[in-house]
């Protein structure tokens, strides 16, 4: 299990009910992690509508998770 810190923005924050959380995950990649969270929180956004960043750098969805990573999921927002 890997322990990671998650930060949510916009719709994801709303659906998760929190702007951040710490989780222990069995997922190995960011893609698997999002699928796991989608099932848990009922995220409506498909993965290809999102950007993901790890430790303040944008990242590929196939990146492997490391202990202590801070992962940020960023949906596009349109309001003005």
């Amino acid at each position, binding site marked *: 299990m890997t322990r990671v810190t998650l930060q949510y923005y916009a719709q994801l924050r709303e659906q998760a009910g929190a702007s951040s959380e710490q989780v222990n995950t069995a997922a190995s990649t960011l893609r698997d992690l999002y699928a796991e969270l989608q099932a848990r929180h009922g995220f*409506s956004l498909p993965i290809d*509508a999102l*950007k993901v960043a790890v430790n303040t*750098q944008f990242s590929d969805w196939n990146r492997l998770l490391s202990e202590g990573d801070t992962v940020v999921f960023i949906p*596009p927002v*349109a*309001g003005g």
Partner: protein
Amino acid sequence: MNRFELTAAPVDLAAQREALKHPGSGGFCAFEGWVRNNNEGREVSGLEYEAYTELAIAEGERVLAEATERYGVLAASAVHRVGNLAIGDLAVWIGVSAPHRDEAFRACRYIIDEIKHRLPIWKKEHYLEGDHAWVACSHTERAHEMEPPHAHGHHHHPHAVVPAKAGTQCRQAVTRESLDPSVRWGDEQKGFAPDYSRQVRLREVGEDGQRKLANARVLVIGAGGLGVPVISYLAGAGVGTLGIVDGDVLDASNLHRQVMYDARDIGQRKVDLAARRVARLNPSVEVVTYEQPLHAGDITDVFAGYDLVVECTDDLASRYLANDAAVLTSTPLVLASVYQYEGQLQVVTAEPGEPCLRCLWPDPPAPALAGSCVESGVLGPVPGVLGTMQAMEALKLLLGLPQPADHALQLVNLLDGTSQRLPIDASRGCALHGGCVAVARRALERTHAEGELERHFERLEEAVHAGYAIVDVREADEIDATPLHVTSLRVPSGEISAYALVHLERPVLLVCASGRRSAHAARLLREQGVDAWSLAGGIAALAPA
């Protein structure tokens, strides 16, 4: 007896002239200013004058008193029109009666020059091409400043000793001169002369920076929650020309976040309200308004006329279109968007090798995925903060202030007070698909092909507000099943013709279920000379009622 009037009604010339009759008068001189059909090379179809009434009247009376003293005339009056005027209409009338013709001529000239120079009156020119510009009615050449000391020299008003400044070379410089506090409102109105000392004092700004701002042309797309602080701060900072694009009218639900508007302005076009606000905040700023959203066919031409663009709409399609046009015209673009309590900010420098919006999100997601202020809600200060950050980024670019070396997406969460910069790696973006320019060119061509007949609206009420006549081209049974909730003309697509619509005299928005039949009908009507548009995506694309 002197009298200065502002009036929305035509001027009764005979009565004006009669009022100036005086037994001691040996000469009467009148000047009439008319609306002409062109200005600075552009064809004008009409114009609209707006005045800061109380101040215009007070200052107008002062001008008449000065002329009377200065030239020893017996009576002088002036009338300036406000409101809408057509070509050939009388815009201003000056009349002077004096013992001799010479004083009458000179006083008349003095009054018109000073009125043009000093009164807080703005004109909005309507051009034949369909756009508008607000122009401060100030000129700088004043004949009396070149005059040798006059026989009535002991009456000289302080204005007369201000030397004429020679050699002003550009429009901005001319405008600034006209706002020199010593020649404008007089001591009691000093607040009207821009005073940039607080920002000029910054070592990185200085007089050079102020000149850069005065010479800058900035386009602001969207005069809503983000646009309000952007427009306000850029006007306050003395940006020479502000272009403002917005197709909406002010709605009561806008006021909690669009704080430069008034409750009494509801229903008026935001571009007009914004232009009026800028004219009052800083009369030295020239405002150009665009009351239709930019589209793929005209956006690069518009961008080419500006040094910088700030995108402030709540519309993803507009943001992508602006990105593509910015990249293709090498115009820096400041993007921001908000969601409830947070926002995102990105500066697209439009320089080779530096990332654009599509480097991050190659294509716009479906509108339903992105959320809007209407559906998701937003707290007023959120666009206020993000718009203020956009204004800051715009000023940084215009002034050449120090910037981080990398390019980032900035995320701001105002609930927990956090902000983070995520550097964007340009080599992982459009570079993988031929580079930003190639990607933007392809995207713009696609948008152009799709969009030249289409208009996007979330609610048909918006289309009605924007001046479209709604024509429902569905069959009767479809209409019964899903009626529209706005007034519409029903003409099934198979029966559509220009003849059926000839009485509408407005742009026509055709509506069907998916946008296909309406696009086809719009194409047919265009060929018959009708200003016809198709609702993009049809009724299916409207926001749920």
